[in-house]
């Protein structure tokens, strides 16, 4: 039986190792980008014009260039300019990739947040002011929860995309699951010329995005009582 063979088990253990990196990258990106995106969205809604324009310019740059290019720039440009180096080992590559993902996703999230915040009717803020609430009271008690409910569907979209975008990390040789799948074509751990491991990685992505989808749907249901 193929699923019990030594070949299958060796490949799966290598793919698991790669998948662990994928999952770590996924969660670290979310942990970093979700709060950072909120800060950025305040910047792009600021009434202080220079800050607003600065933030919107950076949003344009980050959204207007491919993530794969941003990863290359973040990893290679600082050491080439002798500013600092991430290090050539696995840790250095992982840190650089995580940084690139957090920045990229934070700017995308910030626009979703901005839409969510600006979608709450102005009348509610005015009502808050009439009741004598401070600006931060209005944000945290009136706007924030409604914003969260509004942004769940577009955020789910981005988060599912993130699951698959993690595969871009292999451009600077981070050994995530697709890299591991490809490695058996050239030869890895005593097996060479195997094609199936690359296609088998789809199982990992489908399982992972399936779980994420279920969790996000639950979250959406929980928030539905706001209507």
């Amino acid at each position, binding site marked *: 039986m193929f699923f019990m063979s030594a070949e299958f088990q*060796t490949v799966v253990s*290598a793919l698991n190792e790669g998948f662990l990196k994928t999952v770590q990258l996924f969660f670290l990106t979310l942990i970093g980008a979700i709060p950072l995106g909120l*800060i950025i969205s*305040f*910047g792009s809604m*600021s*009434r*202080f014009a220079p*800050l607003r324009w600065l933030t919107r310019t950076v949003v344009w740059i980050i959204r207007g260039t491919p993530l794969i290019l941003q990863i*290359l720039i973040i990893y*290679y440009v600082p*050491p*080439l300019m002798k*500013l*600092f*180096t*991430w*290090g*050539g*080992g*696995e840790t*250095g590559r992982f840190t650089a990739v995580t940084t690139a993902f957090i920045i990229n996703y934070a700017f995308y999230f910030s626009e979703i947040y901005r839409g969510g915040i600006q979608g709450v009717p102005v009348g509610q803020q005015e009502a808050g*002011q009439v009741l004598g609430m*401070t*600006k*931060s009271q209005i944000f945290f008690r009136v706007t924030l929860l409604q914003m969260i409910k509004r942004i769940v569907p577009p955020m789910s979209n981005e988060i599912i995309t993130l699951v698959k975008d993690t595969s871009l990390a*292999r*451009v*600077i*040789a981070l*050994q995530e699951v697709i890299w591991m799948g*490809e*490695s058996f*074509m*050239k*030869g*890895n*751990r*005593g097996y*060479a*010329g*195997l*094609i*199936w491991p690359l296609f088998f990685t789809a199982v990992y992505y489908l399982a992972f995005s399936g779980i994420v989808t279920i969790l996000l749907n639950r979250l959406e249901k929980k928030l539905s009582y706001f209507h």
Partner: protein
Amino acid sequence: MKKIFTQKLLSFGLAMILGLSLTACSTSSSSATADSAESSAAEAESSESSVAAESPEAASAGSTEETTGETGSTETDSASGDSDLAAIQEKGTLVVGITNFEPMDYQDENGDWIGFDADLAKQFAEYLGVEVEFSEITWDYKVMELEAGNIDCVWNGMTLTDEVTSAMATSTPYCTNYQVLVYPAASAADFEGLTSLEGLNIAVESGSAGEDASEALGASTVPVQSQANTLMEVAAGTSDAAVIDVLMAAAMTGEGTSYADLAYSVNLNEAQGLESEQYGVGFRQGSDLVDEFNAFWAEKVADGTVEEIANTYGLQDAVILE
């Protein structure tokens, strides 16, 4: 009025946070470099003063003494300069840039790097008195990886093409190699003995010696990410044939692989009237590691280590022993 004021305050606060974090990043890195510069300066000073204390003659004798004797002072001098050797000995590791390339660099069942290149890289690190670290890289970016200092050498069955020799400091060649045409075994009769590839779609690794050879022989090329991917192109029928290194073709086609129905034969170097290619190790331009490597290699050839390792990996015909 009040709400506008608080909002401005909030946005100023955020701007401050952004600004502070930026300056914090830049100062932390600059202070780190300042520290290291300071410490190396201090070391240099202390070694100088010890020299002066030991022998006043030495200090006055000057240049000859510096070059022959005081290893301590030359080491610290060069560490602050651009000696790769000193930098590597200071950090204690030689980072070897590789790709997964049987039989040169590949992983055994336990995930440890072995292969002709990997085994000798371990010995080279030992020779330099440092630890070895293997770092998988994306082959297209090998020069950038070297220049950025992410790796210290490219040691991965690298063909010494003009592109390579103009962008890196390379060692003396240690292995010969030639490009072969890989095609479906079923249609072998159409491919054997070809001297021109005109009219064929040939899959090649982007930036490889095989790409150059195919273009020189008039093929239309399909550049893909790795040599392994070229075989998938042929197996899937999306390309007529592939051009890869003979060492790789030998390891990856035929019985016991996913490419049992592929075969190879044509020596494209012969077809072009070219000499065989040669493999070398690449270092940063101007690196003093090249001389260290050549001395190391001569020593290991002389004591039979190289031949022994070549036999282990079936490279006895390819390795250069002189």
